[in-house]
């Protein structure tokens, strides 16, 4: 029972927690009475997904796949900006 195995076992629980979080975000995204709620849920879900990807990358010991997480975080930011601008102004560009 060394540190490494404890670490990897704990990652299991982290994965379960993340799945649970996805379910919660999903419920908010489905029920969300206003559009803002849905956008918030999608945003949180995307950023959590990025974090989850990094954790999986540690678990599978592959740094290669972690690059996707950075990209996902950036694109989720763009997604937010677009939704927000549409909801605020009704137009996106101009």
């Amino acid at each position, binding site marked *: 029972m060394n540190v490494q195995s404890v670490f990897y076992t704990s990652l299991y629980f982290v994965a379960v927690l993340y799945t649970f979080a996805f379910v919660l975000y999903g419920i908010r995204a489905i029920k969300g009475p206003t559009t803002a709620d849905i956008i918030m849920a999608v945003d949180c879900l995307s950023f959590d997904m990025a974090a989850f990807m990094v954790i999986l990358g540690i678990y599978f010991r592959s740094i290669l796949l972690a690059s996707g997480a950075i*990209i996902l975080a950036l694109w989720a930011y763009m997604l937010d900006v677009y939704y927000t*601008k549409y909801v605020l102004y009704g137009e996106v*560009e101009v």
Partner: protein
Amino acid sequence: MTVKRDTAVALSFLLAFLVLSYAVVEKDVMGLSKNPLRPLGEFYLGHAFASGELTSHSPEVVTAIVWNYRGFDTLFETFVFFLAIMGTLSVLRLREGQERMVRDMERVEPHRHMDLIVRVITRLVLLMIIGISASIALHGHLTPGGGFQGGSAMAVASLLLFAVFSKFTLERRGLTLRHTLGAYAVGIAIILLTVYAPLALGGRFLQINLLPGELGLFDLDVGEYLAVSFGFLSVFLILGVSEWIFRRILRGEVR
């Protein structure tokens, strides 16, 4: 009536689903239960970067397939993208006089910047996106990525720029459709030069192995990067024209 039609459609889809699932699960039509490596894939994995006759000088096997072994597909895929963008420009085209009209009308339009926090953060994020997209594109033959991935990442940067500042920020600085189309043509010229060059060296079309080392893959990635990012930019430049302006122009034209 419509309910009946929908039910019929749904039933036929259920039938299709049952057939497909029977084929896949019961008859194992795709060989999924063991899912072995197909010999073709094994060939690519084994030869893409090993030294020898059939190498492609790239440890990234997908890029090797996309641009070297099956490069012809990708050349035409770039072409599909180009055609789609030209189709878009063709639908949204403006005459010479109309371009001037648009510019006059846009002068009175409000600039809807988003607020300070978003603007400042976006500046930093934009620089990061540009760096990352260049990294994706230029390392296409070493690590995952490639021209198209990098180009679309760059397109997202321009989209962000449009949303957070307005699209006029670019146009005020003198960037118009002419310039983006010119840059697009430069990217495509790089690709075409690279794929035609082997003919001059006495080889087959697209035989980029005749070029020294990894030059072929590098060139193609750079060309695709330029082409895709400026292609997206051209589309969004013209899609960003305000709705009321375009309606007024069209109203003058409908006969």
